[in-house]
């Protein structure tokens, strides 16, 4: 049995002739903070979509806490303990902030229609527990004062944090963050870095982070995997990655000799 919480081996998917992700291996121990980086179009978000079941991996294997996740639909993967945020924010805009978070605890409860229609004591207790838990999470993210506002009316930075908050409400073992710092200013990025570490420690979960902001990635991640054109080109600690020639090549292009005459 592997010592890894999330153990994905050789995941791959192609769309027609395009090999979007090939032989992706991600092994994340409990309580790790793992970075997934790569140039635009490297397949990072596709990798997330494979892990969360949006796309079915065509090759490979994937287990979470020794439970096989291969071929499961997204809602069962979420129930198994893998939760995510989205690169382009996907909140339930018309719903209140509170409802967004309460909804995410759905997979941890039972929702019989008879109990709902007759408001059985268990139903009411469950609703209250969901509400209390959601308010607790919102308070942690300093979003509690806006609990009854529509999610789409929140400022951008708050929407990003609400997405993380919502993902946590599914009670995940592994949290996947897809470019959480996109569009944030430097001070907000610093706050986010601190938030990610607090969340990781407090909820005792592993974090897989896709991010373009290198200083943030290098600052918080313990291990980094680098993708380019769907292939894993490097894997290691931040300092190993920074000195890896293949990573430099992927980001900056091949070192070409200066053409003569210029």
């Amino acid at each position, binding site marked *: 049995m592997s010592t890894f919480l999330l153990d994905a081996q050789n995941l791959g998917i192609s769309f027609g002739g395009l090999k979007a992700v090939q032989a992706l291996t991600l092994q994340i121990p409990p309580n790790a903070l793992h970075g997934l980086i790569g140039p635009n179009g490297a397949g990072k978000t596709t990798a997330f979509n494979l892990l969360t079941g949006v796309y079915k991996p065509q090759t490979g294997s994937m287990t979470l806490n020794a439970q096989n996740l291969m071929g499961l639909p997204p809602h069962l993967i979420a129930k198994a303990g893998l939760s995510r945020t989205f690169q382009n924010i996907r909140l339930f805009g018309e719903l209140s902030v509170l409802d967004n978070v309460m*909804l995410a605890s759905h997979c941890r409860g039972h929702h019989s229609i008879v109990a709902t229609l007759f408001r059985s004591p268990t139903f009411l207790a469950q609703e209250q527990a969901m509400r209390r838990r959601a308010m607790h999470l919102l308070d942690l993210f300093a979003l509690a004062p806006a609990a009854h506002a529509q999610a789409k009316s929140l400022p951008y930075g708050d929407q990003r944090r609400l997405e993380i908050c919502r993902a946590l409400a599914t009670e995940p073992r592994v949290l996947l963050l897809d470019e959480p710092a996109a569009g944030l200013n430097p001070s907000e990025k610093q706050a986010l870095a601190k938030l990610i570490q607090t969340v990781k420690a407090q909820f005792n979960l592993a974090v897989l982070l896709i991010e373009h902001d290198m200083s943030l990635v290098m600052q918080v991640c313990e291990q980094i995997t680098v993708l380019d054109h769907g292939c894993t080109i490097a894997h290691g600690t931040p300092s190993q990655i920074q000195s890896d020639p293949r990573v430099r090549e992927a980001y900056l292009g091949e070192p070409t000799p200066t053409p003569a005459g210029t």
Partner: protein
Amino acid sequence: MPSALDATTNAQLRRPNLPLITLPWLACALLGLAMLMLGRFLGSYQETLMQQVGIFAIAAVSLNIVNGLAGQFSMGHAGFMAVGAYVAAATTYYGSLLHFNTAELQPGLFNFGHVLMLIGLLAGALVAAALGYLVGLPSLRLRGDYLAIVTLGFGEIVRVLLQQTSPQVNGKDPAEIAAFTDAPLRTLARIPLNGALGFEGVPAYATNLWIWTFVGITCLAAYRIKESSSGRAFLSIREDEIAARAMGINLTKYKVRAFVLAAFFAGIAGGLLAHAGVTTSPIDAGFQRSFEIIIVVVLGGLGSISGAVLAAIVFVLLPQVLHPIKDYRLVIFALLLISMMLLRPKGLFGVREIWNILPRRAAHTKPGATP
């Protein structure tokens, strides 16, 4: 010192409980009383109008579950209504022939005829719900326009199938009744629903009191669904299917659940219509009726239960109010609808209810205050 969290949590915990339990019940009781009293002051024409309003309200509130809350555009709602109508009509009509030897209305506030009607309503609703399950299944793969076409097709299939049924037993002919009571099952196996002519002579047990009782039940049920984890699941599917799935919502289960619930209450609306003293005809399953219900739901606001009831009242009564201007009333009616869509594209109340429009609007101005 109480923190902001405690204050908000307590307020939030208390807030829904009050209107949840008292308001719909109160509304029910008041409406029921009004129905009993108003019946004495209104002419039969006005009573018929009120019956129509009530049946429309049930149909709209039920369609709102699938169209408004879950965001699955169904255009076959009249199909479910017609199924409920025919099952309920047949239950009461043939049940009356067997039990009373006649299909005449039995006098009294509550007798076996009413029991037959209730059995018929339940049976019709269950058959409609079963069909709702079948229609709900393709909604997993079909979105938007495509789903609309499939549901439209369902309504048309129901209509055409109902036209093929065999003539009904004539409740005024003792010989036919005797033949029927001798071998009821053999007669029923022919599906005697009177084809394109429409099923006639169902005793009109569904008075305004009955209809509005069911309006109350339907509204209460819809409200309880809306303000529950299932309701949130429906709304999340409407807002963003991908995010809903990623947050652990089983799309299959909840889309089908929305269709089944909507079809169930549509079946009740149809069953009541069959007992309201009108001929139940296959046309009732057609797309025209479906469109009317959609108009009511959109007018009231997708997701708003009280909005749907209010819109049903407007929809039925407005043409009556406009009656003096004769032929132009339909033009005015259409213009009102168009201007409504231009001025309030989300309907009267959007997704909200009448009673929480004011407090919610106050809450709206707050989010800027967050750090």
